[in-house]
């Protein structure tokens, strides 16, 4: 990468110079008015550098949304009721890997993975159990699901309907971002082009039918895979542009989809750079959407959620992670994001326990209620340092975005593997720098010569019994449903996949017939094929 403005320096120097940010931006000993390039307008005013709302958290404090879901649907239902009782304001559903990849719990490939990193959902029956007794017109639900998002959303809508809640009353978000699965997280199913089609079918259908549901959350898992903060924002916004172009090519106007896109980022402990990252990102996105033809203000606002934790958390001395997520969540609140997930301090170990999950939620409540951060929008605005760093981050992010454009856009850099290689290289550089002590990680490589010990943390027990129970319930569903109806619905899914129409109505029909996630995915895979990653070496 070439140096441009105050953008990142060539690779390794960025990692080793202690007076540069993680993105390689040089830091001055102090900042003054001479470092200011611009004076951003007040919060709520285009390009929203200082936040998307004028009154920010006075109007509504950020959504506190903890990721939960493990074991069986029954256990997940219990955890959801517990969290709602503790004052959580939105639900976040984590699905197990077989569900994310479109495999049923009795698939041989799913052996040992059922219910492990999230809950197993095989059919509509499981979704009914997960949300039993939870009024879907009164909670919002975020589903971290991509490859099989269309199926899971159809199930959620069906559960609501059975509760008597009409489709236009349910609210929440599905991640539905296949590009980041291919670029960073690895839970891909179909090749790039059909993946884009299915995701955009979901968006198009949701825009017209589920006015309170956000049909895509463009996610920055590139960061957790190795990208630096400027690259993270650049890759994620470039993915946003790829989706926006795909929707515009379907004749959907930026005003119509712009109000319904949201983003999802990672926040680590590099406090000021994180604040600057979000301020710069909002500015770039708003400008792009305006140039793309958006006229409504709401369509230019970058709504964003984030996770505090991820790769910044350590397995060593896990209680230190509470300090980390506190710093991270404070950065996010200063940056004015809309929804926050604070990871649990034991995340580098296992699925969080009730204690660790609750304590993480408490961190957010303390920030929102005991500090002033929710009372004043953009509290760091006007700081010489933060304003200057925001400008530098903008330059750095734009430089990477231009590079991607030059290479044909986000879909193309994923097709060639350029992006995956960039990320892998960064991850390697980072690990080397940590090993050599150039990037301090307290409790891991600092103080020097720490004795390494296995920290005693309580681990949430997970048993194979849960998986057995799930397989039994799947068997029961298969026995009780109408096989002719299932077969007909699955044939229709395959037919639609061969054609060019929207896939959602066929998927809804299959879901209502209690066809399983695995069966619907297989029907699609027979037409679409399977993604083949490019060689990275």
């Amino acid at each position: 990468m070439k140096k441009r403005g105050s953008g990142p320096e060539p690779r390794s120097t960025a990692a080793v110079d202690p007076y540069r940010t993680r993105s390689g931006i040089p830091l001055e000993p102090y900042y003054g008015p001479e470092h200011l390039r611009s004076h951003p307008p007040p919060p709520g005013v285009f390009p929203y550098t200082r936040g998307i709302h004028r009154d920010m958290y006075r109007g509504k404090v950020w959504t506190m949304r903890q990721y939960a879901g493990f074991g069986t649907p029954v256990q997940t239902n219990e955890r959801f009721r517990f969290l709602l009782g503790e004052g959580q304001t939105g639900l976040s559903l984590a699905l197990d890997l077989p569900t994310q990849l479109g495999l049923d719990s009795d698939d041989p490939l799913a052996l040992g993975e059922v219910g492990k990193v999230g809950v197993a959902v095989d059919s509509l029956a499981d979704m009914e159990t997960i949300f039993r007794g939870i009024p879907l017109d009164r909670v919002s639900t975020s589903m971290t699901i991509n490859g099989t998002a269309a199926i899971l959303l159809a199930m959620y809508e069906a559960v609501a309907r059975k509760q008597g809640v009409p489709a236009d009353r349910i609210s929440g978000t599905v991640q539905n971002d296949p590009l980041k699965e291919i670029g960073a997280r690895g839970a891909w199913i179909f090749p790039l082009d059909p993946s884009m089609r299915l995701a955009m079918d979901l968006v198009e259908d949701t825009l017209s039918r589920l006015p309170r549901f956000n049909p895509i959350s463009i996610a920055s898992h590139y960061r957790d895979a190795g990208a630096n903060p400027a690259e993270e924002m650049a890759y994620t916004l470039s993915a946003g542009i790829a989706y926006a172009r795909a929707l515009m090519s379907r004749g959907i106007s930026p005003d119509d989809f712009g109000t319904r896109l949201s983003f999802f980022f990672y926040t680590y402990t590099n406090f000021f750079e994180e604040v600057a990252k979000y301020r710069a990102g909002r500015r770039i996105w708003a400008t792009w959407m305006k140039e793309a033809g958006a006229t409504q203000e709401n369509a230019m606002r970058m709504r964003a959620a984030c996770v505090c934790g991820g790769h910044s958390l350590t397995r060593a001395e896990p209680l230190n992670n509470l300090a980390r997520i506190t710093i991270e969540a404070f950065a996010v609140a200063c940056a004015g994001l809309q929804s926050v997930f604070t990871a649990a301090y034991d995340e580098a170990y296992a699925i969080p326990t009730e204690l660790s999950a609750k304590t993480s939620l408490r961190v957010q409540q303390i920030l929102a209620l005991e500090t002033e951060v929710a009372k004043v929008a953009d509290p760091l605005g006007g700081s010489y340092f933060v304003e200057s760093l925001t400008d530098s981050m903008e330059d750095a992010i734009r430089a990477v975005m231009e590079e991607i454009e030059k290479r044909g856009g986000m879909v193309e850099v994923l097709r060639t593997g350029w992006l995956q290689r960039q990320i892998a290289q960064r991850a390697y550089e980072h690990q080397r720098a940590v090993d050599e002590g150039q990037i301090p990680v307290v409790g891991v490589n600092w103080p020097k010569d720490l004795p390494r010990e296995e920290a005693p943390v309580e681990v949430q027990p997970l048993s194979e019994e849960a998986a057995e129970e799930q397989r039994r319930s799947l068997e029961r569903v298969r026995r009780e449903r109408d096989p002719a109806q299932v077969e007909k619905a699955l044939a229709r899914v395959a037919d639609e996949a061969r054609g060019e129409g929207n896939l959602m109505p066929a998927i809804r029909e299959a879901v209502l017939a209690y066809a399983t996630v695995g069966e619907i995915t297989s029907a699609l895979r027979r037409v679409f094929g399977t993604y083949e990653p490019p060689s990275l070496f």
Partner: protein
Amino acid sequence: MRVTGYKPRILLGKAGLDGHDRGIKVIAAALRDASMEVIYTGLRATVPSIAAAAVQESVDAIGLSILSGAHVSICRELRKELEKRNALDIPVVVGGIIPAADWPLLAEAGVRKIFGPESPLDEVVEYFRWVVEPRAWANGNGPRPVGEGV
């Protein structure tokens, strides 16, 4: 003297459904930088395919990356598959999030060493170098002093 003309061959495998491959790619880069030959299975390799590739490519060691919590079942299956192929002498090394309570179970399944998220790269590289030596000797590729003909 350890420098030789022999390049150890390491098979890195990502078994199971988990797609988080940051760790295994970093290890691949580190082993390559240390002049080892790395064969990476890519995501979602099945255990039988890992065992088959290990034998077919006559690798000196297998490294598995597992973050999904499925480590016990994967390692037990790998042992069975290696046994079937008469290849239990290929050392197996595991990296990932493995709770201490499971370490004995993995040891029983024949795993020689477990690395965690914070293991320094040099330690991992050194371990691979050390663990492949007996096999390299057995194959007539043992360490030789510099200067001896290849």
